[in-house]
């Protein structure tokens, strides 16, 4: 790319390579946003630019920006928008053609010329393609007071930077997604714990009311959800399977005999009894209790607890799939 004036240093090529090497070594050490910010600032500083911006992909917003002389700091909102619009236009032109471009070659809005030269004190804007794997992946826009000449070596060095930036974008996408996943899972886990605590609280209340030996909440498929009360002296998975199987069979029999209403199964033994009540069509509440003066009350409490558990189970179901 040739520019109007030739302001170049003799060892610019070697310095740029050194700079790019230093910058790329930072790619994995810092977060992507910090890395691209550093790249923009260093490149703008290297070329003596007042303002530098890097655009990647098809984005209209720069991923990295540097305002070395605080030119943009005091701009009004309207002027800032005007500048940003032309900046994005320059980046778009570079990405479209895959070639360097100058701001002065593009059509500008009324008032921009005055903004650039008088308000900002800048002379020209240069757009350089950032390429990787033969494709233009983005653009580096630099704004200068005085004209600058860029060589092929500059563009080749930027290509090396383009490969690193492209790799960092992919890495950053992955890690950002991973972190987002972790945060989301953590949030869900907190909700899950909260609802589980509420369920355990309801079971504890029910156990205290019924003076039950144990109160269990299991899935209809016999998987354990929660339990309150004393540890039972036998394999609880067997108990869960028997409770779930017995309930399903009883429900089916009742259905065949013409019953469609709410169902409750009570297994009455000599000293101990088990009451099984369905909760929200997906779980079973089982109360293992010793002889009780008013067993009807246990059924009433079970109904009441089942209604409360239904709400918690619904909320639990929403956050269960992690």
């Amino acid at each position, binding site marked *: 790319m040739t520019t109007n004036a030739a302001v170049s240093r003799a060892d610019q090529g070697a310095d740029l390579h050194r700079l790019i090497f230093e910058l790329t070594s930072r790619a994995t050490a810092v977060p992507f946003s910090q890395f691209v910010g550093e790249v923009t600032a260093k490149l703008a500083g290297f070329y003596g630019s007042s303002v530098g911006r890097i655009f990647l992909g098809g984005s209209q917003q720069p991923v990295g920006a540097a305002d070395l002389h605080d030119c943009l700091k005091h701009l009004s909102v309207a002027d800032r928008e005007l500048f940003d619009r032309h900046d994005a236009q320059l980046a778009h032109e570079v990405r479209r053609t895959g070639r360097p471009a100058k701001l002065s070659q593009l059509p500008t809005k009324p008032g921009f010329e005055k903004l650039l030269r008088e308000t900002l004190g800048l002379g020209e804007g240069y757009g350089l393609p950032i390429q990787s794997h033969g494709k233009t992946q983005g653009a580096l826009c630099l704004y200068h007071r005085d004209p600058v000449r860029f060589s092929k070596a500059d563009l080749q060095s930027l290509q090396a930077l383009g490969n690193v930036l492209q790799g960092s974008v992919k890495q950053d996408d992955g890690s950002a997604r991973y972190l987002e996943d972790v945060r989301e899972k953590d949030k869900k886990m907190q909700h899950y714990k909260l609802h589980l605590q509420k369920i355990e609280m309801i079971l504890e209340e029910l156990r205290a009311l019924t003076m039950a030996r144990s109160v269990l909440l299991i899935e209809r498929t016999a998987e354990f959800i929660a339990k309150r009360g004393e540890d039972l002296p036998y394999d609880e998975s067997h108990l869960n399977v*028997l409770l779930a199987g017995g309930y399903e069979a009883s429900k089916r029999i*009742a259905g065949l*005999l013409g019953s469609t209403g709410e169902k409750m199964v*009570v297994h009455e033994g000599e000293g101990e009894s088990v009451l099984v009540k369905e909760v929200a069509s997906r779980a079973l509440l089982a109360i293992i209790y010793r002889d009780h003066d008013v067993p009807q009350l246990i059924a009433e409490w079970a109904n009441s607890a089942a209604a409360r558990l239904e709400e918690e189970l619904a909320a639990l179901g929403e956050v269960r799939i992690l």
Partner: protein
Amino acid sequence: MTTAVQPRIGSNRFLLKKDTHEIGLILNRFQENTRCRSVLLIDEAGHLVSKHGEDTSPREATVIALLAGTFQTTRRLSRLLGAKEFSSRVDCGMRDLMMLQVGDDALLAITLGDESTSTLVRTYALESIRRLEKVFHGAAERSEESALEESGWKGNDTFARAVTDRLDALFG
């Protein structure tokens, strides 16, 4: 309604016609007293011993199979809890179902009616179970020979003689 059920041999027990008749009487009285919709007596293998009340014939086989499964489940559950005797009750509004153990290997399944009260049904059921167990006990003590003798089955002598003659002719 009382349905006649073929005497069935199961669980080392030979039920004769007089036994099934007695079982029928017990269940019939039970149904009259409790006004339940139906009462089924089933053995642990899922064989229907006797039934009274509403006809559930289209779904009877399914109901009996499920009852036998529930019977085994409840029995296992009661053993886990350390109980020798048990009963199950399915509360489902107008058609509550009650299942009670009869002896070691049979089950009484009662479908309650609109006019039935579970406490009354349970009281009468326990009394009926005591009588049924007596019938079962008598049947269990009966040997095969005495069962055949009591039933009046004399076999077919002509057929047996013909088979023996044929075998003698063949082998000398």
